[in-house]
């Protein structure tokens, strides 16, 4: 704990911060631009906003100074949340039970939203986070265009199913293969690049993919996207009210929740496959090579590790899981367009990986729950309308708070939520090591 500041000093510092906030607020908050009837911009003065902003910053800074621990700069973090395998097993069981509990609690109508918006949505990001974790967390290659592979997967299913009538179960492995080969394709040119040059090229690659999807209308139908993509089937049985549908075959009453439940268990299975494959790969030579590459590329080369293959497999495998997730996304939405595959998505997934603690599987899952679930929860805060008046729309502040949360969480725990790592190779006894002892790679 830091020594508590004397109250006068805290007040003075908070006052300064409030003053700065007032200065920052001056034109952008105080003068709002509005269109008048003749379509000209006019200014609207709202000095009270400036006072509110300054007041909020003053109070916030004062509370932080008085009660929060001052972050120790660059001090190694030891410990942190250590999650034993028992806990992760409990987590998996809880996930299996989640839709059933929701179903019994809220009924088939009420639980639909919760299973879909929270369960399925979060699990997609968990899976994407785990996929990117292979590239960023294990191999230490900074990838800012990961969403491109997600898009490749989604469009593979969307195009193959609408043009050739292929079923989801055939397209799923194809989408993974497709994305993996695109991953290798991106891997080749960037093999020589390091650090931020690698980052910008992956970003550029993501932007190119999204620009092509937007502009090549003959191929992808451009901005309008691909509509009426065939929905998921229960291994051939459609989730419809028809004679040969899922409900009729099993003698159940037709309900929309069946499909959502199936989607939930499907993405859960896909995410768990990603997890198990990653865990097993870490024990194999290729996984050890990834981690060695992250720790020290020169040492790797001197020991005869083929860095070209190592990097390419990391890119390809990470991309493959994004491809799976992409085709799941397409079958769940029934509609894809380039707006779902912007840089914002890549940034969100990367944020989940880093906020969770790079390389920590549990941390990534936890960060996905916090970031995605948290922003979804903000949609539910309709009661705030009663407090601030009906013109107040809490969902407007969703992304604003999302951005702020990223900054605050990074400052609070620069090494991620889970700052300890499980070693993949150990002598005699397996002990968690602090994340500060793990390199982040140069690539």
């Amino acid at each position: 704990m830091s020594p508590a500041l004397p109250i006068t000093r805290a007040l003075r510092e908070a006052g300064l911060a409030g003053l700065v906030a007032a200065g920052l607020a001056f034109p952008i908050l105080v003068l709002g631009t509005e269109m008048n009837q003749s379509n000209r911009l006019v200014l609207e003065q709202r000095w009270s906003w400036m006072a509110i902003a300054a007041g909020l910053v003053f109070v916030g800074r004062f509370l932080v100074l008085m009660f929060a621990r001052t972050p120790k700069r660059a001090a190694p973090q030891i410990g942190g949340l250590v999650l034993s395998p028992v806990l992760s097993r409990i987590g998996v069981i809880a996930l299996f039970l989640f839709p059933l509990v929701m179903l019994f609690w809220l009924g088939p109508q009420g639980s639909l939203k919760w299973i879909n918006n929270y369960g399925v949505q979060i699990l997609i990001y968990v899976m994407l986070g785990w996929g990117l974790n292979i590239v960023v967390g294990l191999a230490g290659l900074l990838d800012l265009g990961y969403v491109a592979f997600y898009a490749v997967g989604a469009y593979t299913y969307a195009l193959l199913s609408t043009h050739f009538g292929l079923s989801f179960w055939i397209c799923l492995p194809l989408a993974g293969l497709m994305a993996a080969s695109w991953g290798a394709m991106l891997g080749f040119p960037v093999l020589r690049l390091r650090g931020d040059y690698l980052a910008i090229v992956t970003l550029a690659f993501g932007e190119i993919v999204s620009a092509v999807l937007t502009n090549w209308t003959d191929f992808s139908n451009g901005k309008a996207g691909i509509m009426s993509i065939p929905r998921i089937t229960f291994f051939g049985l459609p989730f419809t009210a028809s004679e040969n549908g899922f409900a009729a075959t099993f003698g159940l009453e037709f309900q929309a929740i069946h499909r959502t439940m199936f989607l939930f268990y499907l993405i859960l299975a896909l995410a768990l496959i990603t997890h198990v494959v990653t865990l097993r790969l870490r024990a194999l030579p290729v996984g050890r090579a990834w981690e060695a590459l992250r720790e020290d590329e020169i040492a790797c080369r001197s020991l005869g590790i083929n860095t070209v293959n190592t990097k390419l497999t990391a890119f390809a495998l990470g991309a493959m899981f994004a491809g799976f997730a992409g085709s799941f996304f397409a079958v769940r939405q029934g509609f894809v367009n380039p707006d779902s595959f912007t840089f914002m998505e890549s940034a969100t997934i990367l944020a989940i990986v880093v906020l969770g603690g790079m390389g920590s599987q549990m941390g990534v899952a936890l960060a996905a729950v916090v970031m995605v679930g948290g922003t979804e929860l903000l949609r539910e805060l309709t009661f705030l309308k009663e407090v601030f008046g009906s013109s107040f729309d809490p969902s407007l502040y969703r992304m604003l708070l999302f951005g702020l949360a990223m900054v605050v969480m990074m400052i609070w725990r620069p090494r991620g939520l889970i700052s300890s790592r499980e070693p993949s190779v150990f002598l005699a006894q397996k002990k968690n090591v602090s994340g500060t002892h793990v390199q982040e790679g140069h690539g």
Partner: protein
Amino acid sequence: MENFLQQLINGVTLGSIYGLIAIGYTMVFGIIGMVNFAHGDVFMLSAFIALIIFLALTQLLGLTSLGLVFLIVLMGAMVLTALWNWAIERVAYRPLRGSFRLAPLISAIGMSIFLANFVQVVQGPRNKPVPPMFTDVIHVTSGGAFDVTLSYKQILIVSVTGVLLLVFWYLVQKTALGRAQRACEQDRTMAALLGVDVDRTISLTFIIGAALAAVAGSLYMMYYGVVNFSDGFTPGVKAFTAAVLGGIGSLPGAVIGGLLIGLIETFWAAYFSSDYKDVAAFSILIVTLIFMPSGLLGRPEVEKV
């Protein structure tokens, strides 16, 4: 020929704006090795500040002299944007100094999301049109297929950029601040040991970067006549691309990269298809980096064991 000349003029104008933003990226990268993802949104914010100051001067104070208004807008936007960037560095990046490389990057991405949505919340999501300014044009050639024109706006953009680059070059090369800045770039610990206030120098770097971005923002607002809260991302990424193309960390590289990206984009849009101008800019970046992995003027990173 006319077309070529016209596109050259347009490309240099666009490239000047990219170059001004790219300097902010490259300076910050040079001194703390961090990609300041929020820089594009700082640029967008500055365009909004410039717009508001412009409206305040013309509507609330009733100033009519366009030259004077523009000068005040430029100064005001530079000062206020610099204050914003200073505060951003203080809040979001300074606590992470000395932390691992990805921490400030994520913090910057968070800041970028925050800034874009902040402007959306306080100023509304709609496009903000600005009344046209400096509408006069000079006819460079006439009698051909069409007249090649050079608008006063374009002259203003290129000359303001040129003057600022000279001032900036003087600042970095000849003043004590510039020496401190270059010293910190080479070795922060050594600079600190020799009495350079590293924190202050880094703050000043952010302030200078923001001031240049504010000039770019004001010029952008004037040139295109419309601003929107989502305008930060694309110019930001292009400017970052420009900085990397020129060799990140190299100041002349940022300007050259900016001009190149501006020219590539304009010529591609004119001669091939405007849909794929972003693809062209990014592809050239990728191809350049394959053959010159540290950009045009960047120093290759020497790795020591």
